[in-house]
């Protein structure tokens, strides 16, 4: 580990004390911590030494890494990210081949039990895990090996968190998420395709400040970022309430910024911070740019009936189901009618006449 503390490093980089405190306040507020905890965040971050981070990329598209590295440099979040010791990340590191694997082994040995493991991408289990390998080691084997010495695991992106795109039907590689494999380590899921950069740095900052992972929901997502759905925080919500919807992407409603529900927006069932944290230095976010939320931070989002199918619509065509069922109903109804008629005529034909005499006999 580097001997310099985080605050010393930041000062070296020319970040003022005031700038640092502002960052702490922003981080505290982002994590929904009370103001009273800002000094605690500052104190903890000041003293924090660079934790060793090993970043493993499995079945992924590097979009998660892109998301992080494209985050508006040189921001304080960026600096924080500089100040973790990213000991292994095969997209970002200079070393390659054996040297890279050696760096990983070295970091693991040196910080055994203390390092943070960040994973992006899902893990294929099909064909004995041979669908994806790095340096001849299958993803499954590498994950198990590195997870063993990790203090905690951060599953970055929907693939690592829930299987994501590789797991989408028909899941040819037998892809699974990290938590399907690793059961004995604290895991935090930071889903999204890709996830919001500040959410990743927020989780890391929380780990640095409190030495533990933030409070998680039932899907192991940090509650502070994934506690509310997009719909509840959407600035287009008033139009939903008034029943004003865009019908196409270029109609009057779309131009007026009406609700995108009819165009398939998954905001109501998607829990993420896009509407508040936004993207590209707070510039915009999908719904603001005129496209509905596709629910990328939810498990199984790829197989949820299509991005442009309204949430209140079933997956299949209703008209077709009605016609098929209608034909079946008419056939069965006609058969039932014939059967009923037969029962009736049988009853008429086999009716035994009862006379007064018969009735008298009975009594």
């Amino acid at each position, binding site marked *: 580990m580097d001997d310099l503390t985080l605050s010393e490093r930041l000062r070296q980089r020319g970040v003022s004390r005031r700038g640092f405190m502002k960052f702490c306040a922003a981080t505290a507020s982002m994590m929904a911590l009370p103001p009273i905890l800002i000094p605690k965040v500052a104190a903890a971050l000041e003293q924090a030494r660079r934790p060793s981070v090993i970043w493993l990329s499995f079945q992924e598209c590097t979009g998660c890494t892109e998301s992080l590295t494209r985050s508006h440099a040189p921001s304080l979040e960026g600096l924080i990210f500089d100040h973790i010791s990213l000991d292994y990340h095969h997209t970002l590191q200079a070393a390659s081949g054996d040297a890279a694997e050696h760096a990983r082994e070295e970091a693991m040995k040196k910080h055994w039990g203390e390092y943070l493991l960040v994973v992006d991408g899902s893990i294929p289990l099909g064909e004995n895990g041979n669908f994806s390998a790095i340096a001849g080691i299958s993803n499954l084997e590498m994950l198990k090996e590195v997870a063993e010495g990790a203090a905690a695991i951060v599953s970055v992106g929907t693939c690592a968190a829930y299987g994501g795109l590789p797991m989408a039907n028909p899941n040819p590689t037998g892809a699974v998420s990290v938590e399907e494999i690793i059961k004995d380590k604290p895991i935090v899921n930071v889903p999204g395709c890709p996830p919001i950069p500040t959410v990743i740095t927020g989780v890391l900052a929380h780990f640095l400040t409190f030495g533990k992972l933030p409070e998680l929901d039932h899907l192991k997502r940090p509650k502070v970022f994934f506690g509310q759905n997009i719909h509840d925080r959407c600035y287009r919500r008033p139009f939903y309430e008034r029943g004003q919807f865009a019908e196409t992407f270029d109609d009057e409603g779309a131009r007026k910024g009406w609700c995108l529900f009819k165009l398939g927006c998954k905001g109501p069932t998607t829990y993420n911070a896009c509407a508040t944290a936004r993207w590209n230095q707070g510039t915009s976010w999908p719904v603001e740019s005129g496209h509905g939320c596709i629910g990328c931070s939810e498990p199984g989002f790829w*197989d949820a009936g299509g991005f442009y199918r309204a949430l209140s619509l079933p997956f299949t065509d209703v008209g077709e189901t009605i016609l098929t*069922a209608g034909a079946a109903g*008419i056939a069965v109804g006609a058969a*039932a*009618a014939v059967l*009923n008629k037969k029962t009736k005529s049988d009853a008429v034909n086999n009716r035994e006449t009862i006379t007064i005499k018969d009735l008298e006999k009975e009594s």
Partner: protein
Amino acid sequence: MDANELLSWARGPGFDIALTIFVAGMLLRLLEILALGKKPDLSPPRGSGPKGGAATIMTRMLPRKQVFDKEPLRIINGYVLHIGFFIVLFLYGPHIVLFESFLGFGWPALPSGVIDAVGAITIVSLVAALVLRLNNKVLRFLSSRDDYVAWVVTLLPVLTGYLAYNHLVAPYTMMLALHLLSVELLLVVAPFTKLTHMFSFAMARWYQGYQAGRRGVES
């Protein structure tokens, strides 16, 4: 099962199965009734059958004074729950999207705040309907399991819809899944309970009105 998986099932196979049972079952029931037929009436008509039938379909929407005076509360409550149910079903934006998908045309939605309020009123009205039923000795005696099943499967979609919209009891995704499942339960059960009246009411009224109209009497 995770809420997302449940929702996917409810929007996928669940909905297909339920809708198929609803459409096929409803047609089966209606065709069975129609196929009963009626014996030819050889007497000369004293009035118009079709006129009587059509009129009765409409006039039975209105209460009769003698009946109304006996139990005004129950009659009014009946209107509240039917109209309330119609408003939340047909005038809520996301519901209209569904109807539009197979009808090919839509209509304007009411603000969701109004739907929310009407939904709440409908729930209260449904509870009142049960209380009134249980408090009336004759009605209670006449009630079978069918009546209570119909009440439960009608209440559930309204209740879960209300809870989902207001983020109560369970997270939205789970409540939405439960809402869809409750609608599917209603679809499956409807053809085999007295809920068939959603279609057969017109047939029954037509039949009675026709008979009366043909004889030149009021139905």
